[in-house]
């Protein structure tokens, strides 16, 4: 019986320590990557502002900067909702639908050209409530029927667009309520009113994310749902609430759209789903959940808006914008995805 014994004691202990050391190297690498993802987008944003100011004529002018601030309002509000959904590890493809729907019915509830209703602020509240309800229903379908979020929100999004079109039967209502025109053009301290409203939503979202247990639980579910559930967190209730919140934000964006265009039709939301996803992902919130946040999304929205604005100033064909965003988002996801050795993707 030939016995070969390798690794005398001291060599063995030294080697043992190295295996443990290699393991902690992995953790250090993880930490470094997370730091890059947190700081990266912010640096990119600064870099973009500088580059665009130099390369794009008219970018660094008062008029344009105010215009950028105005353009930021709607995507910012949308991203506040989508961020929480992504933190869970899910997705909400119904943003455009909810936004279009709410925009359509708010135009029908306030003073308009199609009917005799004049509900003013109450009309806005009702419209937002209706939109939020759809999100609640999506969340319930997702949690109770165990249908993946992309499918539920895709189906619901299509359905709700249908409801939107149905509400005005092909002829959208024009808004006559003077309050709307005032808000559309109003400013406070030079910054458009709508942008202020968007910032209010931002701060509310920030407070929820950082100062409530709910916010912490969303992160927990995104990172490790089974452990979160085992620890006593009511996962289903939180998921439903997140989808309702996302629809709430999309509804507010719908009202913004109606205010800006003074008309209520579903097309006002066109293109926003994709640009919002791009903004949130580019900002650093991961598609698989558990990391990111609303501050990152704010940065992402600014980045995407700057790029959009610059392309317009440069006279680039408007149809090219989504394609460019598509490439950006693919690059952003590719850079941040966990390159685990044996991860499974669907």
């Amino acid at each position, binding site marked *: 019986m030939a016995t070969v014994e390798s690794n005398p004691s001291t060599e063995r202990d030294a080697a043992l320590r190295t295996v443990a050391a290699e393991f902690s190297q992995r953790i250090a690498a993880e930490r470094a990557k997370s730091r890059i993802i947190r700081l990266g987008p912010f640096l990119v944003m600064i870099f973009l502002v500088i580059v665009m100011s130099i390369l794009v004529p008219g970018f660094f002018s008062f008029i344009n900067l105010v215009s950028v601030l105005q353009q930021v309002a709607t995507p910012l509000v949308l991203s506040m909702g989508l961020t929480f959904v992504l933190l869970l590890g899910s997705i909400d*493809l119904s943003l455009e639908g909810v936004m279009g729907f709410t925009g359509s019915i708010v135009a029908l509830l306030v003073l308009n050209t199609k009917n005799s209703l004049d509900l003013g602020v109450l009309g806005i509240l009702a419209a937002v409530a209706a939109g939020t309800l759809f999100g609640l229903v999506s969340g319930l379908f997702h949690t109770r029927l*165990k249908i993946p979020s992309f499918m539920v929100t895709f189906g619901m999004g299509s*359905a709700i667009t*249908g409801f939107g079109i*149905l509400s005005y039967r092909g002829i959208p209502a024009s808004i006559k309520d003077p309050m709307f025109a005032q808000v559309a053009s109003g400013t406070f301290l030079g910054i458009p009113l709508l942008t202020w409203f968007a910032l209010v939503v931002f701060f509310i979202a920030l407070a929820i994310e950082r100062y409530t247990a709910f916010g912490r639980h969303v992160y927990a579910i995104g990172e490790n749902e089974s452990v979160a559930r085992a620890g006593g967190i009511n996962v289903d209730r939180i998921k439903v609430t997140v989808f309702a919140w996302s629809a709430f934000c999309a509804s507010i964006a719908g009202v913004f759209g109606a205010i800006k265009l003074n008309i209520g039709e579903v097309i006002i939301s066109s293109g926003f789903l994709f640009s919002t996803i791009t903004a949130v992902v580019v900002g650093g919130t991961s598609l698989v*959940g558990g990391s990111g946040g609303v501050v990152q999304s704010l940065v992402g929205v600014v980045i995407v808006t700057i790029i959009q604005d610059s392309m317009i100033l440069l006279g680039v064909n408007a149809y090219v914008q*989504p394609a460019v965003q*598509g490439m950006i988002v693919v690059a952003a996801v590719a850079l941040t995805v966990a390159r685990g050795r044996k991860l*499974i*993707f669907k």
Partner: protein
Amino acid sequence: MTRRTTGRVVVDNLPWLLLVALVGVFTGINPRFVGPFSLANIFSVAAPLLCLSLGATFVIITGSIDLSVGAIVSASCVIYGTTFPVLGNWSIVVAVAFGFLAGSLNGLLFTWLKIPSFMVTLAASALWKSVALILVGGGAKGIPMELWKGLKWAEFSLGVVPILFLVALCVFGLYLFIQTKSALGRAIFAVGANERAARMFGLNVNSTKFWAFAMSGAGSALAGAFYSIELKTSLATIGDPVTLLAIAAVVIGGTPLTGGRGSVLRTLLGALLVVIIQNGLNTVAVDPYWQQIVFGAFTIVAVYLNSERGGRNLIVK
């Protein structure tokens, strides 16, 4: 352990039952529903939808999703219409080649960069929609009337069945063949049912997924060409409502979104069902705006009925 409970048997055969029931109901309301004109219309609308859903079926069986099918249809419709004046009917080859490449791009990004399929195909759909709009300069461009005689062949029918549907059936035959007789077909089911095991079995998971996406692209592009032929136009927005309808066709036919089970045969049934529902709703004079709502709802219900109710521990994101 799954056992064939009565509930399961009913759900499995639901598409057939639904088909019979709906045809019955709609005919009852309006006997012209089964008249030659209506039937021809059903088949001609079904032809492109069928092509497009067939490839999407493979993607869904592998457990992924392709949200770019509509955009590829649009881009292909435009490409066909634009090259037709130059290449005549050979434009179909160009269109299908484009679709194959577009699908391959999806497959590459998905397998190589490891980005979730809904994200890759969502980005792709933005890309191809842009391409379509740019190529056509913003809306639609008709195929010049002098060239229409080149498209005469498309107007033939075998009884009530238009030739385009027969072509679609041939494509169906091809996909069925791939599904049942090729190693790729077996691999698609294996990967969808249990990807980890499929990998350990030595199957090339990446290659399987890649081909599923490529075939989805090709099928979508063929559908786009069909639309262009039928409408004699390059229409960049033709594909917008189509993604939902394609997914509906696959899912209503009985293929679960979770993957591992299903068949293109079911998708054939599903596509016919979708068109029958659409046409039926029209014949019965239901507000067209309700259609989107109906399909959205049907899709959700169909997904629910077909999914593996994997017990308490199933995590759905």
